[in-house]
């Protein structure tokens, strides 16, 4: 019988059925970071348990690291305690830690793929909701809570109910100036922030076939913002080419065997899905959010909604969002003044993101009064940007170029909005207070749109600002 990738990976990792009907699922790869793991190690110690497969657990530090200070101790004693705790836990339990001194540190969802740890046909768990990123490789990757981190540490398994699978096809061609970030913002706008509840999203169609691995990661990253528990793309030649030669990728004869095996996990033609959604790529515009959840998005050419034109719940949620964002009902989003431009995060902090922006940023200047920061998602990304002179382009334009980390995506480090500052951000969440100030405001957009906002000082159409050729 024809099966989806999800079904095949699930079957291969199903250990047994538990009393309540859930599956005990083997987790092949466990990624951990400093924020959600210390309590799990604490629980492990309380129960007198060991880590079941330390060689399948990998750690990095990302959320709390300052991006403008490398030396320790960190100025923030709580942050300093957290990095030390992770170091201690990894040493005690024999876990590989991509610490800053290794040159391999970075946001967990960037480090896994970069090191070749993220592989097709595998299960991955991490105490972080954006673990769905790893699905870009044809892995089934779950964000989990701390008690489940304990479960995975102690048993290399977790209890989970099976998901349904929704196939999302994006066919045709994206218009110039439209990026993978716009694709996922558009999908969430169409299907809603809880449209994916109970589902894994399988992304496919011509657009995904042509996408690079980094573009696929951007989309899979935000699956969770659409309520889906996981999101993936079937592995293909693009996937294998990306993985070839990476530190943890199989080598020699093992490589060929692995590729054959990876290929076999792709969804079979004719397999059935619980739901299918098809989107025409040509209908997707550069998309920006206007509200306080990632589903509240519009094309850059549109106006923010007018709550008086709708009723009930929809009306009150628009009113709440516009009041928080300090936007006028029915006004164009284009031209909204910004204070901060943030370029980075696990959604758009990869080499190609900086590379694409650098193409257009050369010779341009960040507008007066705008604070612009560019933060590579990993030390690896930072090194490549430096080799290619990309950091220079950003610096010359007036961006601050920082050390790797989550930075202003969620501001558990010194990079924060102040007061009600408005930030044009390449990250993934625009929740109230997300960027560190309880009244701070976030508009999500693609990296090139962030650059356009940075140089004009307001939300702008990058296609106009940078004269993006129309074909």
């Amino acid at each position, binding site marked *: 019988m024809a099966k989806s990738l999800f079904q095949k990976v699930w079957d291969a990792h199903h250990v047994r059925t538990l009393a*309540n009907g859930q599956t005990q699922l*083997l987790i092949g790869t466990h990624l951990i970071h400093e924020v*959600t793991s210390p309590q799990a190690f604490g629980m492990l110690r309380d129960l007198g348990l060991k880590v079941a497969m330390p060689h399948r657990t990998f750690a990095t530090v990302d959320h709390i690291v300052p991006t403008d200070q490398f030396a320790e101790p960190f100025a923030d004693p709580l942050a300093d305690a957290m990095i030390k705790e992770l170091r201690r836990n990894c040493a005690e339990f024999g876990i590989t830690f991509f610490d800053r001194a290794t040159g391999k540190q970075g946001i967990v969802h960037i480090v896994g793929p970069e090191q070749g740890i993220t592989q097709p046909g595998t299960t991955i768990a991490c*105490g972080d*909701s954006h673990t769905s990123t790893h699905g870009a490789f044809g892995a089934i990757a779950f964000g989990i*809570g701390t008690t489940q981190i304990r479960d995975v540490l102690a048993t290399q398994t977790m209890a989970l109910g099976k998901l349904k699978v929704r196939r999302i096809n994006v066919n045709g061609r994206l218009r110039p100036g439209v990026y993978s970030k716009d694709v996922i913002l558009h999908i969430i706008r169409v299907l809603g922030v809880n449209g994916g509840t109970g589902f894994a999203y399988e992304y496919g169609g011509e657009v995904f076939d042509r996408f690079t691995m980094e573009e696929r990661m951007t989309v899979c990253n935000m699956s969770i913002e659409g309520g889906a528990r996981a999101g993936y793309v079937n592995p293909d030649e693009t996937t294998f080419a990306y993985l070839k030669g990476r530190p943890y990728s199989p080598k020699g004869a093992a490589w060929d065997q692995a590729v054959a095996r990876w290929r076999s996990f792709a969804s079979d033609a004719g397999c059935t899905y619980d739901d299918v959604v098809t989107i025409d790529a040509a209908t997707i515009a550069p998309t920006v959010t206007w509200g306080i959840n990632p589903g509240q998005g519009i094309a850059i050419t549109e106006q923010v909604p007018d709550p008086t034109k709708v009723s009930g719940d929809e009306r009150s949620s628009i009113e709440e969002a516009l009041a928080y964002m300090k936007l006028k009902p029915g006004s164009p989003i284009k031209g909204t003044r910004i204070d901060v431009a943030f370029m980075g995060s696990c959604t758009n902090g990869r080499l190609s993101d900086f590379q694409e922006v650098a193409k257009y940023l050369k010779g341009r200047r960040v507008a007066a009064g705008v604070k612009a920061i560019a933060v590579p998602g990993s030390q690896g990304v930072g090194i490549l940007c430096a080799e290619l002179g990309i950091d220079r382009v950003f610096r010359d334009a007036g961006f601050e170029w920082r050390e790797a980390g989550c930075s202003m995506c969620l501001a558990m480090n010194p990079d924060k909005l102040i007061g009600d500052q408005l930030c044009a951000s390449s990250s993934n*969440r625009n929740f109230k207070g997300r960027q560190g100030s309880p009244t701070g405001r976030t508009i999500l957009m693609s990296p090139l749109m962030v650059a356009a906002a940075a140089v004009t000082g307001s939300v702008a159409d990058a296609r106009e600002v940078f004269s993006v050729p129309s074909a």
Partner: protein
Amino acid sequence: MSLAKITSVKGRGVYVPGNDIDTDRIIPARFMKCVTFDGLGEFLFYDVRKQADGTDKAHPLNEARFKGASVLLSGANFGCGSSREHAPQAIQKYGFKAVIAEGFAEIFFGNCTTLGIPCLVARREDIARIADAVNARPDLEIELDLNAREIRFGGQTVKATIRETDRDALIHGRWDAIGELLEGRNAVLETAQKLPYLAA
């Protein structure tokens, strides 16, 4: 490990209205700089409860009449956003034993079950009725009955739903899966042997 069988929760309620209440609102990220979950309760809903200077804003949790409530009522898609267990931990440490909402984000829902916090889904109009009753009489006892899948309050009864695997885990006292997962050790090794990428 023997866990309590959670078949029913009784307590006073408090209604925190709103849809899509995300985990950043439940517990702002800056309070997650900690290596234990202790003390998280006091930061529950911090930014919507407190002014910048630490004084109270108007919020149901700040009202004296709702002190001691153990059943949290809210709207649709409650707990969306992050997988941080800090959110359900803060809810539990604040003193809540159960949540009733129109719907829950999946990871949050699972995290709650694992902590023994039943999350029941009820219809919007029924939540409004419970909220009205609670607002009129804050000392009213609400009972969540997981066997009957019902919520009872002030002589009224409304239907509730909860994912069956989680209901089963709660009522049979196996909501923390660790014991059962550990028992599967041999089966885990067998499955692992069939997966080449797990070889040490």
